[in-house]
């Protein structure tokens, strides 16, 4: 594997479409060589704008984007996209409709052997036999693979993928995701994948970056980010979470389910206690303080909604479970899935 030094660094990127709405509001991000970074954020958080800014398709109003020692964007320069050597896979794939798959892949190549190289790239994507097909003759999955082959063919320094699996059905998506990650790894490419699907982001990423309202709010390996979100917003981006407001007393934050470690916050400080649904362990107890109000099956696990005097929460419990709607239960917290952050 390539070294893990930073290849691309983005500092303070700003871009606004309207005076009152900043698509990028000072985003910082580092891409590490040979690693796949997933950029996760809700719709409208500025992910695609950041991607387009890296490609040079969008101008920054402030901030910089530098590849090693070369700055593509800063206060004085804006290098044109065609001079950046960035590979990009568009959400709609943007295959040239009047060119064959082979001609599409060869488009970014030069030299007398460009068609041979393009064919080799297509063969690596197991699409050699479709080289002569036009985009509209290819299936959605094949189109995506041609688009990826086209982006990788010129051996770009960075590959950017904008929601590359969004147009595909669920089963195909999983398969194609694995294939895409394998292809990117085999090419040793530095890649940035934009997605709004948390599961997808964690499945593909070596590094995860969370984006909200034009800023990167947290980065790190997916497990680490999932286990230790820095804020309620970050936690919500990665999945369902119960948020309980509390005040720190004697190094602990109080919850209806007992006190939890305050994670170093000082006494008297207001904090949010983030609890993943799987942190709750439910046990049947006729005298328990909580009542099950709803029970839903969700494949390998169940969700139980339970209510007490001070509120109502959702627990994720392994299937099968004897606990039914209307049952009284006791609740315990597994501290591994609990995190205290600043309110």
């Amino acid at each position, binding site marked *: 594997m390539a070294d893990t030094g930073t290849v691309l660094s983005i500092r303070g990127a700003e871009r606004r479409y309207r005076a009152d709405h900043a698509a990028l509001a000072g985003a910082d991000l580092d891409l590490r060589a040979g690693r796949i970074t997933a950029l996760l954020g809700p719709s409208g958080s500025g992910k695609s704008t950041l991607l387009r800014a890296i490609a040079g*398709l969008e101008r920054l109003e402030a901030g910089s984007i530098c590849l090693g020692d070369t700055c593509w964007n800063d206060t004085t320069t804006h290098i044109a996209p065609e001079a950046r*050597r960035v590979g990009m896979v568009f959400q709609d794939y943007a295959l040239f409709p009047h060119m064959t798959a082979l001609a599409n892949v060869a488009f970014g190549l030069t030299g007398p052997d460009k068609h041979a190289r393009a064919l080799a790239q297509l063969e690596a994507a197991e699409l050699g036999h479709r080289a002569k097909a036009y985009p509209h003759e290819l299936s959605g999955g094949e189109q995506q693979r041609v688009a990826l082959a086209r982006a990788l063919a010129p051996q770009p320094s960075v590959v950017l993928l904008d929601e590359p699996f969004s147009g595909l059905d669920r089963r195909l998506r999983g398969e194609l995701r694995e294939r895409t990650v394998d292809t990117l790894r085999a090419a040793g490419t530095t890649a940035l994948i934009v997605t709004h699907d948390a599961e997808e982001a964690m499945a593909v990423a070596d590094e995860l970056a969370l984006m909200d309202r034009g800023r990167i709010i947290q980065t790190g390996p997916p497990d680490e980010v999932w286990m230790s979100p820095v804020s309620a917003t970050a936690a919500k981006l990665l999945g369902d979470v119960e948020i309980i407001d509390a005040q720190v007393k004697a190094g602990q934050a109080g919850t209806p389910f007992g006190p939890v470690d305050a994670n170093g916050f000082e006494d008297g400080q207001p904090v949010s206690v983030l609890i993943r649904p799987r942190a709750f362990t439910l046990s049947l107890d006729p005298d328990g303080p909580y009542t099950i109000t709803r029970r839903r099956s969700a494949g390998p696990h169940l969700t139980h909604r339970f209510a007490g005097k001070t509120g109502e929460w959702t627990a994720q419990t392994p299937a099968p479970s004897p606990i039914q709607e209307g049952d009284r239960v006791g609740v315990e917290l597994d501290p591994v899935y609990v995190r205290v952050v600043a309110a």
Partner: protein
Amino acid sequence: MDKAGSPSRLPGQTSGLAVLAALVCAAPVLAVAWIALTRDSGDYLQHLAQTRLPVYLSTSALVALVAGGGAGLIGTALGWLIARTEFWGRRTLSWVLILPLAVPAYVAAYAWLDLSQAGGPLDAFTGGAFPTIRGGGGAGMMFALVLYPYVYLLARDTFASQSVDAYNAARTLGAGPLTAFWRTSLPMARPAVAAGLALVAMESLADYGTVSHLGAPTLSIGLIRAWSGAGSLVDAARLSLVLVFIAIVVFGLERAQRSRARSVNGSGRHKPAPRLYLRGGTALAALLVCLTPLALGMIIPLGRLVWLALHTETATGLAAASFHSLTLAGITALLAAALGLATAYALRSRTAIATLATRAAGLGYAVPGAVAAVGVIAILSGIQALVDPSWRAMTGEVFPIVLTGTGAALVFAYLSRFAAAAISPAETALARITPSLDGAARTLGATRRRRVWHIHWPLIAAGVTSAGLLVFVEVLKELPATMILRPFNYDTLAIIAHNFASDERLGEAALPSLLIPLVALLPMIFVARYLSRQDR
């Protein structure tokens, strides 16, 4: 919004050209309005208002109603048959049905009047039972027969893209097939049909050759009489203004219809409707329904003219006239296609000036050729009057009449009238080049030049070519502006045909009349096939 990114920068500084196109298209109309509103007129207009104007207005209304009603009926029925059913010959008919656009309405009128008048073959054959095709109703029918393709094209594409869900929903809510069609499919197609009808109505009000031959005095007859008979630019301009006003009303109504189209077609997913397979008798009936307008609008009138041409000695001057027609049409088509493309590019920049320019360019399309001609004369003679004094001071002679007396004035008028017709096809063609397509080419290292020639041009070439060819055909058919603006002894095929026909020398008019649709047919086939490419 993430995806709301600005459209990718497109090559060239095209906004300037867009503004130029807009000026060319809008200037004559604005000049007409200026003259009509600022200069004093003579008694002619007052006299006219007291005598002929009511007749002009009522005849215009009759012509537009018959033309619109007929074209609406034919176009909608054919559009539905081609888009929603399947029968033997449907694929070919899909584009062949557009071809009557190559036939000028006045050519159809020459043939039909000749066939149906007292002593004509139809009159003799039916023992006088066949009515003579003439007057406002007759003229309206001629327009319906050759202009229905405007409605047909828009209706066909709308029916083809309509989701079947609305129809099915109506069925589940208790409506029978006919009721469901009547209450969902047809109203959903209404904006498209209205747009087609607006074009048909305007084209028929702009016409001169047909209505003068069939004796239907519409406003444009009054306009030409004011100009060539009374020689009054101001009166012609005032009458023009009435036509412009009608155009604004007609297109305003159409726009009001269209603005609602969005909410109707707004559903995200749609399932195209399955075709109804016609067999046996119904298939034959469908085929006949399709062939009837084709026969009435094209085959029968052209056949009659062929017969007439074969039985008459060929008139002289046809070669020169053909050359003039082709030159004028060719030059205008090239210029219009270029201006249309430039404007469409400028429009993609989404700047306010480009949008304004395009709307202004649309103004030219909305006015009759005679109005454009009057406007061009006003502008050019204005320039002449400006230049003349200083020219005299310098040379001691009168400034030569280079402006109004040349083909350049004609091309100016044609452009004013038809450049806008080239903008929207170019816009549609350019819409195929999504911002991400541009972005993909750029990230793959393509320079501006390479993007234009290897990505843009291959994708828009057919659309731009067909826009140019459409203008070519329109110029070939054009009569009133040519009559007003042509240099002395400068004949086109349309002029020769009109002159012979108005002298009742139809035999000699036959060949030039035939040459227009024959020359127009090849480009029209290209256009028709391009417009029907999804259907093939």
